[in-house]
């Protein structure tokens, strides 16, 4: 019985090889990421193939997802943001959403569960750094030195700027940290919680007699927590995407 709640995050190579001395094996994490990306790309291709005026069910889902992200980006960053960043934000959202959702598949009777890539901070940190660097590069390319207005909000008297500017700088540089850690810690904590509660069931059954009957309680709790984790899986993908929109808006329109 594998009841170590951390064991589910183990990375196992599927095809081992190395590039220039670095371990570049294709692992279960890579498989989950590639699988999620391919599945999303395939679904959207397949659903939009008819491109009918009156959409079928799959096309409604695809168009709904597109419209959802489009509206979110438009609210946060305006039409200019939509024109420049819709593919980026939509890809980011879908990638995280697929990774979270596929990771919800449990392991059954020895079949190994699907790895959740977003439970590794290296994955979420790479995504957050990508957003952070995009903001800096686009911000300087579009606004030049005016990008520094980001740290000096307009309408603030100069003596307050002495306090506000350092706070703005610290908050700007802590963004990628909180961006990465939020997604990672939510998924990690959720999966550990599920495993801990699920672990109570065999432990109570093994205790025997009356305790065996009590095992229904943690089982019910696990089912309810699973529902909650599906909500978290969607919500964290949404939160990551909406924060990306807000940060990109800063790059396009610094100085609020």
């Amino acid at each position, binding site marked *: 019985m594998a009841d170590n709640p*951390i064991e589910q995050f183990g990375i196992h190579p599927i095809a081992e090889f190395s590039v220039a001395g670095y371990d570049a094996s294709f692992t279960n994490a890579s498989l989950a990421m590639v699988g999620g990306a391919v599945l999303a790309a395939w679904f959207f291709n397949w659903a939009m193939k008819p491109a009918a005026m009156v959409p079928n069910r799959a096309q409604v889902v695809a168009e709904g997802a597109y419209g959802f992200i489009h509206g*979110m980006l438009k*609210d*946060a960053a305006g039409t200019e943001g939509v024109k420049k960043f819709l593919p980026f934000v939509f890809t980011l959202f879908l990638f995280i959403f697929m990774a979270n959702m596929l990771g919800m598949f449990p392991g059954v009777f020895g079949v190994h569960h699907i790895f959740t890539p977003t439970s590794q901070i290296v994955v979420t940190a790479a995504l957050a750094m990508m957003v952070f660097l995009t903001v800096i590069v686009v911000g300087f390319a579009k606004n030049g030195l005016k990008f520094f207005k980001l740290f000096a909000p307009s309408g603030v008297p100069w003596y307050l700027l002495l306090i506000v500017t350092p706070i703005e700088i610290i908050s700007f540089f802590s963004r990628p940290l*909180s961006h990465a*850690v*939020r997604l990672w*810690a*939510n998924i*990690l*904590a959720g999966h550990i919680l599920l495993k801990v509660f699920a672990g109570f069931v065999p432990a109570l059954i093994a205790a025997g007699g009356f305790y065996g009957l009590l095992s229904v309680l943690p089982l019910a709790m696990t089912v309810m927590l699973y529902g909650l984790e599906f909500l978290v899986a969607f*919500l964290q993908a*949404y*939160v990551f995407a*909406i*924060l990306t929109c*807000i940060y990109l808006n800063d790059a396009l329109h610094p100085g609020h």
Partner: protein
Amino acid sequence: MDATAAAYIGAGLACLGMLGAAIGVGIIFGNFLQGAMRNPSAAPGQFGNLIFGFAVTEALGIFSLLIAILLLFVVPK
């Protein structure tokens, strides 16, 4: 006190930081509901703001969880 015990006590103390995040998230959703009950037609338009406030508040609780995890699994004992 040896280092392992100190790390475990520290991890427990770090989790107290989640208390603040819990209060903050409660305030956000409570106030959103209050506003939404007063003017239900304006509520859907503020969903993005709600989630943004929730995410920013929750981040601080997540930081304390991060400290706890670092103390439990990363600090050499």
